């Protein structure tokens, strides 16, 4: 298990994932700082908000691309077959991959948290909540990408479907709110149908719009509910995806 985690870390280093993404995050922070400096008021708030949002997108997209192609390569190069020939269960293999990618994600998120802290902490509790939720969001995205990479046979397909789920998860709150108004279409039955459809989809899509809000960095969280929502969503959805991935992987023929 630990050798697999170390192997994932090695490939991440070999693929210059850490270097590439951290340079990207630093660049985004610099551009955010410059953009914030052009604001006539609340420059620090501008810089913080832009840095937080852009770093989040860079990390999540980077993780999805890395996991998608790493796993595809592992299948194509028969690495998975070799690993399965050892005395290791399929469940352990999936968990070891997940843990390896989680370590990679954590190593990317921690410097980002420090960077945002260096830019300035306007609200201490908000900063802590933002940091925790960014970490959990990255773990959840790792789970989504790993699940997709184990179930979809193409690397590009894995990346695109993971990005689609990520986007949908980020917009899920908006979709639910919009369909609930019942004003989208002229025909009431279509509105009701849209509402049902969206409700059905929302039951299996995580609510990532609860995570890493840059609003927290400036004004803090509204209540403890913000924290609970993040913790509960992560506690439910990460094991759910892992279980689904394990079931699918166990049924695979090699």
């Amino acid at each position, binding site marked *: 298990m630990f050798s697999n985690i170390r192997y994932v870390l090695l490939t991440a280093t070999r693929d210059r994932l850490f270097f590439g993404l951290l340079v990207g995050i630093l660049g985004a922070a610099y551009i955010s700082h410059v953009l914030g400096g*052009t*604001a*006539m008021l609340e420059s620090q708030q501008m810089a913080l908000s832009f840095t937080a949002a852009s770093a989040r997108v860079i990390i999540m997209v980077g993780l999805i691309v890395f996991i998608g192609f790493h796993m595809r390569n592992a299948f194509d190069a028969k690495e998975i077959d070799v690993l399965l020939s050892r005395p290791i269960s399929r469940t352990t293999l999936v968990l070891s991959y997940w843990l390896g990618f989680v370590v990679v994600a954590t190593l990317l998120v921690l410097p980002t948290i420090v960077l945002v802290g260096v830019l300035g902490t306007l609200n201490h509790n908000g900063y802590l909540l933002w940091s925790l939720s960014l970490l959990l969001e990255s773990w959840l995205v790792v789970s989504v990408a790993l699940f997709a990479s184990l179930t979809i046979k193409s690397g590009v397909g894995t990346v695109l479907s993971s990005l689609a789920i990520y*986007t949908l998860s980020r*917009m899920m709150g908006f979709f639910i*709110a919009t369909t609930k108004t019942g004003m989208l279409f002229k025909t009431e039955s279509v509105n009701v149908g849209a509402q049902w459809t969206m409700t059905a989809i929302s039951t299996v899509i995580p609510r990532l719009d609860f995570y890493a*809000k840059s609003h927290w960095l*400036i004004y803090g969280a509204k209540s403890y509910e913000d924290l609970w929502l993040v913790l509960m969503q992560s506690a439910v959805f990460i094991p759910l995806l892992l279980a689904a991935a394990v079931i699918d992987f166990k049924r695979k023929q090699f």
Partner: protein
Amino acid sequence: MLARAEISSKRRTKGLGVAIAVLLVFLAAQGGFWYHSRSIMPEMGIVPDVPGERTVHALSFGDEEAFFRLLALNIQNSGDTFGRFTALYKYDFKKLHDWFHLLDGLNNESSYLPAMTAYYFSQTQNPNEVRHLVDYLDEYTAGRVKEKWWWVVQGIYLAQHKLNDLDRAAALAERLRGVRGIPIWAQEMPAFVHEKQGEFGAALAIMEDIMKHPEDFSQGELNFMRVFIDERLHKLDEVKKEMEAVAAEQKKNHVPFTILEPPPSDVGAPRAPSAQ
């Protein structure tokens, strides 16, 4: 064998000639296209069209704060992009108002938009357009005067001095009446506007209301009130005894001559060195 190689070489040369001919034809076509399109420039408006509320929420991808900041910065720089500098009278202030209203839906705690309204866009060469800015400050501060009193004051200033609409200024100033916990000069704003309208009685009534709480103001403030009532309202006789009683009480309680009342820290207003 040699003949075959010769044929192949001839074919290649012929194929190359065709390829070069095609390249030249399309290069000439590109030249023609350039000649036709060289004067067509992208349309660069000043204030961008205002999107729908739903669109903005959708595009924020769950991080409304970042999108608010991005759009607000975009509005600040509108008209001044691509090396252009646009005079403020050319801006569509109705659109600006709609933008501010829309962005308030993403974040109405930030002072960024009212600051842009009060300090920047209000400098327009067309004072009539300032009414849209006053309308926005009116909406922004509604129901939370105690936290946003600074922007009410800015709205009063714009209505009175830029728009020359004393009725609008008085309506806004009325919000500050009796709001304790904000600087005395801000509480006195309705009295100043009433004085400008020639309604000295109403102005005096406001001053009397403020005087009922001598613990809120310094001796210096009391002196100002005295001068205001005497020299501008000419009604000192009506409150002379009341003022003397307040002055005696303040003297007895050793109330300081001045109490520093700096503007809020987040409104971009210059502050005295001692207040920083």
